[in-house]
């Protein structure tokens, strides 16, 4: 399942790049992160509990930065292993200057297998979309925080 979009940030490209490459900041954008550890500058691992309304989906996620061209492009491969699902995702973003701000073009290819997958695409596709929206909203917050130095919430509000 492919999703893609474009998003504007009111922050300079370098600031956005920093957040996108800071594992701790990124962890704060992901829903339900319980623990996070950085193995090296290209590999991270996280234990997450993705809130799904009817319950949570526990997963061990491993992320690998597969390509990087500072300060404009990076791509990541993410693998998640959980009881109900196996997730694999590749994502990439492109940053460009947009006046004083930054424009991010992003795309992701998400694949889910396992019992959660058997719940049907009608449910999965919107779930993926809403998770992506949450990540982007949280990313906004992190970038705002990083560029203004104010303390915002460190994680998205759980619905």
């Amino acid at each position: 399942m492919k999703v893609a979009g474009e998003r504007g940030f009111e922050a300079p490209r370098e600031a956005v790049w920093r957040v996108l490459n800071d594992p701790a900041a990124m962890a704060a954008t992901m829903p339900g992160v319980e623990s996070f550890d950085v193995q090296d500058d290209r590999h991270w691992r996280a234990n997450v509990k993705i809130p799904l309304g009817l319950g949570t989906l526990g997963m061990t996620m491993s992320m690998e930065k597969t390509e990087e061209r500072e300060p404009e492009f990076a791509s990541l491969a993410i693998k998640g292993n959980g009881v109900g699902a196996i997730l694999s995702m590749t994502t990439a973003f492109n940053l460009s200057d947009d006046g004083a701000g930054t424009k991010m073009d992003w795309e992701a290819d998400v694949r889910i297998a396992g019992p959660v997958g058997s719940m049907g695409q009608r449910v999965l596709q919107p779930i993926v979309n809403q998770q992506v929206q949450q990540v982007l909203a949280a990313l906004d917050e992190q970038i705002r925080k990083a560029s203004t130095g104010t303390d915002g919430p460190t994680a998205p509000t759980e619905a």
Partner: protein
Amino acid sequence: MLLSEVGYARPATLEQALGVLAEYPGARALAGGQTLINVMKARAAAPDVLVDLAGIPELKGIELGPDGTLELGPMTTYTELIASAEARARPILGEVCAQIADVQVRNRGTIGGNVCSSDPTNHLPPLLVALGATFTVTGAGGERTLPAADFFLGVYMTAAGPGELLTKITVPAGRSDGFASVPIGVDGTCIVNAAATVNGGVRVALGCVAATPVVVEAPSADAEAVRGAVRAAGLEPPSDVHASADYRAHLAEVVAARAVAQAERGS
């Protein structure tokens, strides 16, 4: 088919229920269970604790106010709603509930469960959004009321957050309503559905085309006007084995117009 280990509590009062929900962050309310138990069978969800709401009298019942306002207890089953004389004040409610699944599911499934599970193919989210219902959500901090349209946040996600319960659904008076769908087989899962009211303006809520109901206001009840309004909404529906995104978008126009036509006939 086999559930993960789970705790079970059967409170007798709303206060007790909220207490358990507050105490266990991984707790979920169990209403009729006609969605939740199945999701648990697939182990796509594994709540730590189920809080069975069946023993709480204040969550049941249907009351018709003097102004025609209906107050629905969320633990009202579809069957109870269909049989309710009061609920006939807004006949579309019973008509739509009678199309949901089958006798067994209607006997156990509740209207509160239907909206709280917020499955995009459910019947009641678009219907209650179209009717302009309001939902009362109760938590430790007290009660709040919000429009149905603001209640649905995503698939399986609603504004009833952790530690909170949907405690009342209020449906305003009105008669000119319609509902149309394209289901998979007679009374099967909806591929697309739409609810409409023409009490005042022409208001349509579309189901199955996004994570939550999509509201479309049409300038008139004319079929072309309704279809045009749906087209203008720029839907990007999910595609699955039953319908491509394009087909869903097309069906959305058709069922919207049909729902409005039914509503017109009732006005």
